[in-house]
């Protein structure tokens, strides 16, 4: 395209598809950009259509610069900044919208189309679900249609034909794309860029008041999915550790400052090993969920002093990691003084009743295990109730809970037990994480959701190290054996805040099977498409084409392009063209004898003239031409071979001449 053609006006077909493509690009962004931008888009599109219908004129320089400054100002007000991914995306969309208004010639349209492709790519940073991925095929197809429309002469172009061509191009491009996707080496980020902020993320935090986990249990949001290499461990052993809470202020349990110091703990492998891989959804937090005691060789991740796995940066995009766990490992048989003090920390005052009761337990039961057993038997013997709606507790919350209301959620039990153990002189801490998960029989993997959030207790004794104990299991075994829904009393509705959630209809078999299949599909998408990075790629490529990556890639690309070329050019359909080629050959043969076909002279007439001039070969000439006309014009189905045979016969019969006789100038 020369510079002059870039200045030409935009063909109608292209403009139509561009308007549609813009709508398709922008609508899914509605949740991620300020609402005012959507309004701006509607206004600009309407304006552009009116310009196209010659109702209004193009905006002047003042209006354009006013709009530009106004939009940038608006984004600054809405996002508080003009840098960062959120504001950047809003600016990109704003440019995409405003450019439409300013678009006059093909060059502008090209800018708009390329901006559109870029907007789609930026959209993937905010949303990467399977549905979204499929949906974006629509704006991609329409943008490509707009690009094709730009090149059309505008005489006979029909919008639908243009779209069809665009879809065809994309379909043909898919095999090569898959090949590139499989083989293109995934590099580490070249530089760090602002990440999409997931403001509205729910999930575990680094501090916990008793009501927090009850709040989480209302959410059916996905936290992670895990696939096990071997058989699935029993459900009551699926304690997914996220972090430990060691600091108690009388009301909240929070992460201690010690836990932030990188210091790999001592532990010894014992017993069986469990291998699994986890696809973690964005949590906005740095810790990774593992079964005890986990071990992963993921880059940028390390084990902290409380056996949790922590990433350098928060998990802002879903990520995949492989873990090996030793559930029976012996953990930290020797505890440092600092750690010991932290594990015995209690507020200076408050909850006197528990302190006294615990001191009594310590006196009566020699040995740590005996104290723990006594506590657990207290929970089972007393009328404790497992509920999401516990009554309010007073200032001495643990006293009130243990000896008063006796109704609470896992956080109440874990907090109270840890307090009592510490008061009895046993180092202990609260572990926060998830328990259980739903097995998907289609894909044989576990799905863990926010309502699986759980808190349990870890206590330490010399030479034995840390041991886990779950007081909730003593009160409501169903919570651990089956899950939250089964553990709740009949009058408490599961997921009462989200009536549309398919999880509430698990008892309907068909709803459940659709839900499971859909979840399985999404998991596959996460694992094999979104998670196809770095190690995952190396594993897959290594397994399938170990050592032959480069030749397989090159060969695959050649085969794909070759097949496409065959399909596009269809050489086997060029029969009619070969007739023409043979006729050209025939013309050249006769030209050598000084006979040139005049412009506009038909084959028949030419043959007649040739036959008169070369009477010795009249038979061969007319044979060829008769066959040619029959095949080409009368639709007779003779083979090209027959025509070639006749030409060969003629060539042999003609006297041999070196060069063509110069044709006379007209």
């Amino acid at each position, binding site marked *: 395209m020369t510079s002059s053609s870039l200045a030409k006006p935009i063909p109608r077909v292209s403009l139509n598809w561009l308007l549609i493509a813009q709508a398709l690009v922008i609508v899914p962004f509605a949740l991620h950009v300020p609402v005012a931008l959507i309004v701006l888009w509607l206004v600009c599109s309407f304006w552009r259509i009116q310009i196209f219908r010659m109702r209004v004129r193009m905006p002047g320089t003042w209006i354009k610069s006013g709009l530009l400054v106004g939009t940038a100002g608006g984004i600054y007000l809405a996002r508080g900044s003009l840098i960062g991914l959120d504001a950047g995306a809003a600016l990109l969309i704003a440019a995409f919208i405003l450019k439409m208004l300013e678009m006059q010639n093909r060059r502008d349209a090209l800018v708009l189309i390329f901006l559109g492709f*870029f907007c789609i790519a930026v959209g993937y940073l905010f949303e990467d679900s399977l549905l979204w991925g499929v949906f974006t095929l629509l704006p991609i197809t329409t943008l490509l249609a707009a690009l094709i429309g730009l*090149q059309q*002469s505008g005489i006979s172009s029909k919008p639908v034909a243009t779209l069809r061509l665009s879809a065809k191009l*994309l379909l043909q491009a898919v095999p090569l794309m898959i090949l590139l996707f499989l083989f293109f080496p*995934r590099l580490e980020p*070249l530089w760090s860029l602002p990440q999409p902020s997931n403001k509205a993320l729910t999930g575990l935090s680094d501090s916990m008041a008793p009501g927090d986990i009850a709040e989480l249990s209302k959410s059916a949001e996905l936290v992670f999915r895990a696939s096990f290499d071997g058989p699935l461990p029993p459900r009551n052993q699926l304690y997914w550790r996220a972090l430990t809470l060691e600091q108690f202020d009388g009301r909240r349990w929070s992460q201690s400052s010690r836990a932030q110091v990188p210091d790999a703990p001592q532990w010894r492998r014992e017993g069986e090993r469990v291998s699994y891989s986890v696809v973690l959804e964005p949590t906005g937090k740095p810790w990774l969920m593992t079964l005890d005691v986990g071990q992963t060789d993921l880059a940028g991740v390390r084990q902290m002093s409380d056996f949790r796995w922590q990433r350098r940066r928060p998990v802002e995009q879903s990520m995949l990691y492989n873990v090996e766990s030793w559930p029976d490992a012996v953990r930290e048989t020797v505890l440092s003084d600092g750690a010991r003090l932290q594990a015995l920390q209690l507020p200076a005052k408050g909850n006197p009743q528990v302190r006294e009761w615990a001191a009594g337990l310590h006196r009566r039961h020699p040995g740590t295990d005996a104290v723990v057993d006594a506590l657990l038997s207290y929970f089972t013997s007393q009328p404790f109730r497992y509920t999401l709606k516990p009554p309010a507790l007073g200032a001495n919350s643990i006293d009130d809970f243990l000896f008063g209301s006796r109704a609470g959620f896992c956080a109440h039990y874990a907090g109270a037990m840890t307090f009592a153990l510490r008061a009895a002189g046993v180092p202990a801490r609260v572990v926060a994480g998830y328990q259980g998960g739903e097995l998907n029989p289609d894909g044989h993997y576990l799905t863990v959701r926010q309502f699986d959030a759980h808190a349990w207790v870890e206590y330490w004794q010399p030479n034995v190290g840390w041991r886990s104990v779950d007081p909730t299991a003593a009160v409501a075994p169903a919570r651990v054996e089956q899950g939250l829904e089964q553990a709740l009393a009949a009058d408490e509705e599961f997921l009462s805040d989200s009536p549309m959630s398919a999880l509430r209809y698990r008892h309907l078999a068909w709803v459940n099977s659709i839900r499971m299949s859909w979840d399985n599909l999404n998991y596959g998408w996460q694992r094999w498409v979104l998670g196809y990075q770095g190690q995952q790629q190396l594993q897959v490529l290594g397994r399938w084409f170990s050592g032959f990556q480069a030749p397989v890639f090159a060969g695959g690309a050649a085969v794909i392009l070759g097949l496409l070329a065959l399909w596009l050019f269809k050489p086997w359909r060029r029969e009619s063209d070969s007739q023409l080629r043979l006729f050209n050959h025939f013309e050249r043969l006769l030209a050598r004898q000084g006979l040139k076909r005049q*412009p506009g002279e038909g084959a028949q007439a030419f043959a007649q003239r040739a036959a008169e001039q070369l009477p010795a070969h009249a038979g061969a000439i007319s044979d060829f031409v008769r066959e040619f006309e029959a095949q080409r014009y009368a639709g007779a189905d003779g083979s090209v071979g027959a025509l070639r045979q006749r030409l060969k016969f003629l060539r042999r019969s003609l006297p041999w001449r070196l060069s063509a006789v110069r044709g006379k100038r007209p």
Partner: protein
Amino acid sequence: MIERFKPAWQRWLGRRIPPATRVELDHRRIFILPTRVGGTYALILFLLLLVSINYQNSLAYGLTFLMLSVGVLAILHTYRNISGLILSGGHARSVFVGEPVQLRLRLESTGHGHQAIALGWDSEQLEQTDVEAERLVEVGLTLPALKRGWMRAPRLRVESVFPLGIFRAWSWLDLEQTVLIYPKPVAGTMPLLQGVQPHAEDDGHATTGPGVDDYQGLRLWQPGDSMRRMHWKAWSRGQGLMVKEFSDLSGHDLCLDFMALGGDIEERLSRLCYWVLELSQRQQPFALRLPGFVSAVDSGDTHREACLRQLALYGVRA
């Protein structure tokens, strides 16, 4: 620099794409290279790749690879769009120097359709047309006629950037189109042969003297007289319908003579050309005399064409 390589380029083209009246565009004749838009496309792909790498986003990788594949496929599609197109030159009518030559081109499709085919003599000014599947399209291109004699049309540029505009497939074709360009007619006095008329009879009194316009006087109008020669001024003065009479009407043949004119050759040919046209329009028989050529006294279109041809080719025939 470019000018220096032009002859070599033309020679190479002549070998690669020999002149022919009818040409099918095939792999020997088609060149294909990315356009500037293609460069922008590559830049966008690079930016998309950077986004994909830095955010480690598989979908962005997917989009990048999809667009890269589409870009690679565009080579095949752009090539396919122009290949198989059959071009042939139609007959072109002769014109006079200074007038535009209308060259007819026939574009033929034997298989699939060809969209947005641009034709022209240089890569800046091109005309676009579509050729539907198995159809024939005629396109007219103009070319200024600068010099009399045989004019050979320059190589024709056929190109297309369809479908994506990121690759351009083109060819330079010589369809052996030649047009005869006549000299530019320039009005002036009639250059008549001095001395012996080629076919004058002995008793004929040849009109003599240069600059004589052959105007003999007026006579009364008779039915059958040409309206052109009416003397309207006389009629308006009330003198009745009069007709201007010319001496040549008396049956004496005219001979337009090259040597009767001064000035350089082109000027003389232009004057002769004017009178050939003028006399032919008056349907008056005349003869043309050029150095080395004398035509018979005649009138009519064939005679006119023959004379114009002589004027056009005077001194340029190989």
